[in-house]
């Protein structure tokens, strides 16, 4: 027994951070996403070579065949550099859905291209947790109708993964150019990810994953894996925000001293760390529990995502305050991490909803 990251996982983190520091520093991210939100500038192919795109794809399909915990390590590193990639949609959610629900022929058809980064899959999962604006997708005679809001990793997506039906009980893959499908960009606070609304008007389905109406387990697993990736994203972004705040406080002088020598400022930094470090262990455990499909996995995932959402919001806010007025400027770049966390928090179930789910899982909200 060993509670912590393995040497391989630490190496993965180092490799990714080194690559991203060199190739995708914040200055480059700014240029790319100014053109289009979620624009990775071709770096997704490089990241695929490093094993990131196929991190959850089994080795027989050309992937790295790694675990959800490995994916969490990768997500943390990507968020450390606010990298614009389709990691959440393609590398995590679509890969998990395919490996869980897809037939072996379907896996052979899709997974190798996901692993090379050629195939990028956006995910229309919002209605699984929150239906608004009459959204929702239903099937009629093998074709799709309805709409889905906040479809994630839509930028550059050649296909979309669409849960269909009242509870998303069927999983459809739809070609981005399919007849009857329109894709309308939505703009969010966070330019490092691309979102869209999909409207289906008798849209053609490229592939149904597994049995129609029998995808509930896969959908549930896909959602939980996505939540781990989002929680890890919050972890990485928050960690970086703390580092930036500590560095700034060590260099900015006021009243003849660096502001990091004032207890008012030091204590803000200590509070951020004291919140973040225990949450890191909770995330690791939740990812590990999900990998082992343990009984407590769903509860731990709900807690990990809810808890990191709460503390992440406080951390990026506090890190901004440590920077003072400069933190409020566009030029300082800190707001990229602030917004990244702000977006992660809202996706696939916000903290309030996830806590209610945690209660339900423990049999507490039966009244």
């Amino acid at each position, binding site marked *: *027994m*060993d*509670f*912590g*990251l*393995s040497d391989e996982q630490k190496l993965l983190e180092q490799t990714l951070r080194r690559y991203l520091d060199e190739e995708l520093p914040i200055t480059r991210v700014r240029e790319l996403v100014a053109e289009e939100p979620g624009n990775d500038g071709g770096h997704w192919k490089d990241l695929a070579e490093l094993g990131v795109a196929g991190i959850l794809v089994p080795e027989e399909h050309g992937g790295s065949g790694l675990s959800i*915990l490995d994916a969490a390590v990768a997500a943390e590193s990507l968020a450390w550099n606010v990298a614009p990639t389709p990691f959440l949609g393609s590398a995590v959610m679509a890969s998990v859905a395919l490996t869980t629900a897809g037939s072996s022929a379907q896996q052979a058809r899709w997974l190798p291209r996901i692993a090379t980064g050629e195939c990028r899959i956006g995910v229309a999962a919002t209605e699984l947790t929150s239906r608004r604006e009459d959204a929702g997708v239903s099937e009629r005679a093998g074709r799709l109708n309805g709409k889905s809001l906040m479809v994630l990793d839509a930028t550059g997506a050649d296909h979309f993964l669409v849960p269909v039906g009242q509870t998303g009980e069927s999983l459809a893959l739809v070609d981005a150019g399919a007849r009857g499908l329109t894709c309308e960009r939505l703009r969010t606070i966070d330019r490092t990810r691309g979102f869209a609304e999909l409207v289906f008007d008798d849209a053609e389905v490229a592939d149904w994953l597994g049995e129609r109406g029998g995808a509930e387990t896969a959908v549930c697993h896909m959602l939980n894996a996505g939540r781990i990736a989002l929680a890890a994203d919050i972890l990485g972004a928050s960690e970086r925000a703390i580092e930036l705040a*500590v560095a700034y*406080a*060590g260099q900015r002088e006021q009243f003849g*001293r*660096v502001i*990091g*020598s004032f*207890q008012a400022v*030091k*204590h803000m*930094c*200590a*509070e951020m*760390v*004291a*919140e973040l*470090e*225990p*949450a*890191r*262990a*909770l995330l*690791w*455990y939740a990812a*590990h529990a999900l990998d082992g499909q343990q009984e407590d996995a769903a509860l*731990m995932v709900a*807690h*990990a995502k*809810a*808890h990191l959402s*709460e503390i992440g919001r406080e951390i990026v806010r506090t890190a901004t305050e440590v920077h003072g007025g400069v933190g409020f400027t566009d030029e300082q770049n800190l707001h990229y991490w602030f917004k990244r966390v702000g977006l992660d928090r809202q996706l696939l179930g916000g903290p*309030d909803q996830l*806590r*209610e789910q*945690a*209660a339900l899982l423990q049999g*507490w*909200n*039966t*009244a």
Partner: protein
Amino acid sequence: MDLSYSAEYESFREEVRSFLEKNADRAPKVGLLMSVGKPSQDLLAWQDLLIENGYAARNIPREYGGYGAAPDLLKRVIIDEEFNRAGMSRGMAGQGPDMLVPTLLEHGSEEQKKGWIRPSIRGETVWCQGYSEPGAGSDLANVQTRAVEDGDDFVINGQKIWTTTAHHSDMMFALVRTEPEASKHAGLSYILIPMKTAGIDVRPLNTMTGAAEFNEVFLTDVRVPQANVVGQRGEGWKIANTTLRHERNMLASSAQLEGSLLGLIALMQREQCNGVRAIDSPLLRDRLLRLQARVLALRYHDMRMLTARIKGERGGAASLVSKLAGCEVSHQIAALAIDVMGELGVLYEGSRYQRADGRWQFLYMFSLGLIIGGGTAQIQKNIISERGLGMPREPQSQTRR
């Protein structure tokens, strides 16, 4: 990450379980709080049984009276899990076994280890900590109690405060100034003082909880052999910091938090107001869930830190946060329990309708004491930011004395 249990560990778990089943009636009752009194006969006998079976003083070498097992994280976790699950006493806790003993193992002479560790882990020798003084609280290095060399002895004069269990302690480990010419931090020594020595006057200090958990200790011409110094003269600050690190670990045990949380959950499932159980109130339930996430995070954080310690890795800032985070969660658990009981939450002193022996109000106040004691929350934040994050130290207004 490998949390799997091999056959060896599965059978170890069985061993622990059958020990607990067989000895359930011998275990003293456990409360929500660490014991601050003189150990009862029951507890002493239980402690002996635990050491004999390797469930207490597990990694302390046999020659010093421990069980002498090689450190094994997984077995430690299994023991914790099984004792928690059974709700059974872990035996002696407190300043002797949890703070002095690890410090002696690290810094004590062979003679000191041989002489003190065995009675301390068995609860035969009860220890108190003589660190704080009226003028040395957060600024602990400002200790003024003087120890002046006289032949083979030191003669000690001064006053200690916040001395838990001093009124029934046999020994005190104390921080005293032996080198008045040296700088503030270099002038201190760590010394072991028998409480029966002439010139020691212990006066109880009542606290807001209504109990006298603390004392003031006045030392007047107290004569102690120089051989009772642990480590070298003038090294007291370094050694005291070892003890404080152990104290921070002790004050913030996540197992204790889990116990409190389980108590709170049980309370919320039982307690009704206007015909509705507390657990069925969405607002109270949300507060419970927020606390549950924090307790879980601290549980796995402990496991992470334990792994790092066993591997000999430096924990960095992460290793410094448990006391700050844990004591706050403990306080918040008690706060929610009080709110769950509404008007009845203020009942105390054995009043009619009081729940759980008034434990929750006691814990609410006591845990506030823990937030302040053992280095205040604010001192913890200085430690985290300065030692963990490398931020500039507070300017020292007085480095020499």
